[in-house]
C-alpha cells in the first residue's frame, strides 16, 4: 500500500517536471551549448588559417611588417580569450570574446587590403587557395553565430515564460545566455574578393 503510494508520487513528480518545463529548459540549454561549440570551432578554424596566410603574404610583401604584426598580435589575443561552455551566460566574458574576434576580423581585412597592392601575391595559387578557405570560414562563422543566437533566444524565452520561470527560479537557477550583438561592421565578413 505504502509502496504504491510512493510510486504514484514519483510518477506525479515526473509529470510535474515535464509539465513545468524542467526538461524543456535542460534541452534548450544543451542546444545552446552545442551551438556555442560550433561557434568556437569555426573561430578556431579561422585562427588555424592565419599563420599560413601570414607566411604567404610575408613571402611577397616583406615591407608590410606592421600589418602582419597586427594580425599576429590579434591572433594571440584571441587565443587568450577563451569562453568555455559554462561561461556563455557571463556578459563580460562574451563581450571580451566578441571584442577580440572583432579586432581579429579588422586586422585580417587590413591584411587583405594590403595584399591588394601586390599583384604577384594576388596571382599566386597559394594565396588564392587561402582566400577560398578564409571565405568559407567567414561564412561558417556567420552561420554558426546565427544558429547560436537562435538557440539562445529559444533558451532565454523558455526560462522566462510561465510556468518555466518558476521552475528556473526555484530549482534550476540558470542565467539567461548572452547572444552575439551585431557590431558596426562585424556583421559583414571581411571582404576578401579581388
Amino acid at each position, binding site marked *: 500500500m505504502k509502496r504504491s503510494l510512493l510510486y504514484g508520487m514519483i510518477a506525479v513528480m515526473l509529470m510535474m517536471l515535464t509539465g513545468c518545463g524542467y526538461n524543456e529548459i535542460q534541452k534548450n540549454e544543451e542546444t545552446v551549448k552545442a551551438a556555442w561549440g560550433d561557434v568556437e570551432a569555426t573561430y578556431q578554424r579561422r585562427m588555424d588559417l592565419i599563420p599560413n596566410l601570414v607566411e604567404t603574404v610575408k613571402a611577397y610583401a616583406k615591407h608590410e611588417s606592421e600589418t602582419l604584426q597586427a594580425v599576429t598580435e590579434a591572433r594571440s589575443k584571441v587565443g587568450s580569450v577563451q569562453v568555455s561552455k559554462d561561461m556563455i551566460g557571463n556578459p563580460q566574458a562574451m563581450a571580451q570574446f566578441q571584442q577580440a574576434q572583432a579586432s581579429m576580423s579588422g586586422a585580417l581585412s587590413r591584411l587583405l587590403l594590403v595584399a591588394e597592392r601586390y599583384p604577384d601575391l594576388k596571382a599566386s595559387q597559394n594565396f*588564392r587557395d587561402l582566400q*577560398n*578557405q578564409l571565405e*568559407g570560414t567567414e*561564412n*561558417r*562563422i*556567420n*552561420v*554558426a553565430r546565427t544558429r547560436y543566437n537562435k538557440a539562445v533566444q529559444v533558451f532565454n524565452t523558455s526560462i522566462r515564460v510561465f510556468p518555466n520561470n518558476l521552475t528556473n527560479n526555484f530549482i534550476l537557477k540558470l542565467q539567461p545566455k548572452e547572444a552575439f550583438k551585431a557590431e558596426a561592421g562585424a556583421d559583414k565578413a571581411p571582404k576578401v574578393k579581388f
Partner: protein
Amino acid sequence: MLKNQGKATETVKPMGYFVLFCVFCAIALAHSAAFALDVPPLKGRVNDYANMMSPGIRTQLETVLRDFEKSDSTQVVILTIDSLEGDTIDQFGIRVGEAWKIGQKGKDNGVIFLVAKNDRKTRIEVGRGLEGKLTDLTAGRIIQLVINPQFKKGDFDAGFSSGVKAIIDATRGEFKAEGRGRGAGSKVKGRGGIMTALPFLIIGIIVIIFIGRMSRYAGGAVGLAGFPLIGFFAGFSLLVIVIMGIIGAVLGLFIPLLFGRSSGGGTHSDGGWGPGGGFIGSSGGGDFGGGDDFGGGGGDFGGGGSSDDW
C-alpha cells in the same frame, strides 16, 4: 441598429486599438519575413528556375545525379535563380540548404550547386558530411577553374555538366548507399548490388512459390521475367541478368515441387499472371523507382562551400 453599433465601437475602443496593434505587428512581421528572398520549392534534382539549361542537358543531368545518389546516396541538387534581390549568395545558399535538407539524415551528404543568373554568381553549398572531401578549397577551385570559365563564355550547358561532373568526382566514394558493404572504390559495386537486390529476390521467390502452386509454368514464366527485372533495376551487367533469368525460370518450375500441391498443368495460368504483374510492380516501385518523387533526406548544412563571381 446603427446607434447600437456606434455604442459598441465606443465601448470596445481599447480592444480595437489592441487589435489594430496586433494587425500592425503582423504586417511588420510579414514584411520583415518577405525582406529575405524566399527559397523556391524543390522540384527535382535540377531546379532551373532561371532557364539557363537546354532541355537535353537538364534531363541528362537529372539522370546523372539520380544514378549518383543510387550508388553513393549523396544528393547533389542544382538551383538556378534569376536574381538574389540584394541578398548575398552565401546567406541565400544556407537558407536553401536549411529549407530543402538535401542529403541523407545523419550522413549530411548534400551538395547544392547554386547559380544566380543576373548577379553572375555561382556557389557550391556543401553539407557537413562532405566537408572533408569537398572542402571550401576544392569547391572554390571547381567554381573558379571548371564552372566559371564556361559561364564567362556563355556556355551554360557545358558549365553545368562539367561542374556536376567535378562535384561528383570530388565526392565519390565518401558515402555508400544504404545496405552496401563498406570498402573503397567501385569494385564493391557488384557485391553491393546483390545486397540491395536480396530482399527483392527473396520476395520474388516467395511470389514464385505462390504462383507456382497454382501453375508451374506460370511460375517459371514469372521467374524468367521477374528475376532479370530485379537484376536490371539493381544495375547488374547483362550477363548476370541473363543468368538470373535462367535461375528464375528453373526456380519457378521446380521450387513449387518442393512445396507440393502443384497442379502441374496450365489450367490456372490466367490466374497466375495477375499476381505475377504485382510482383514485378512491387520490385520496381519499391525502392528504385523513387526518381520522380525526389526530396531532401534531412541533411544538415553548416555553411561550408565556396562562391565566386563570373
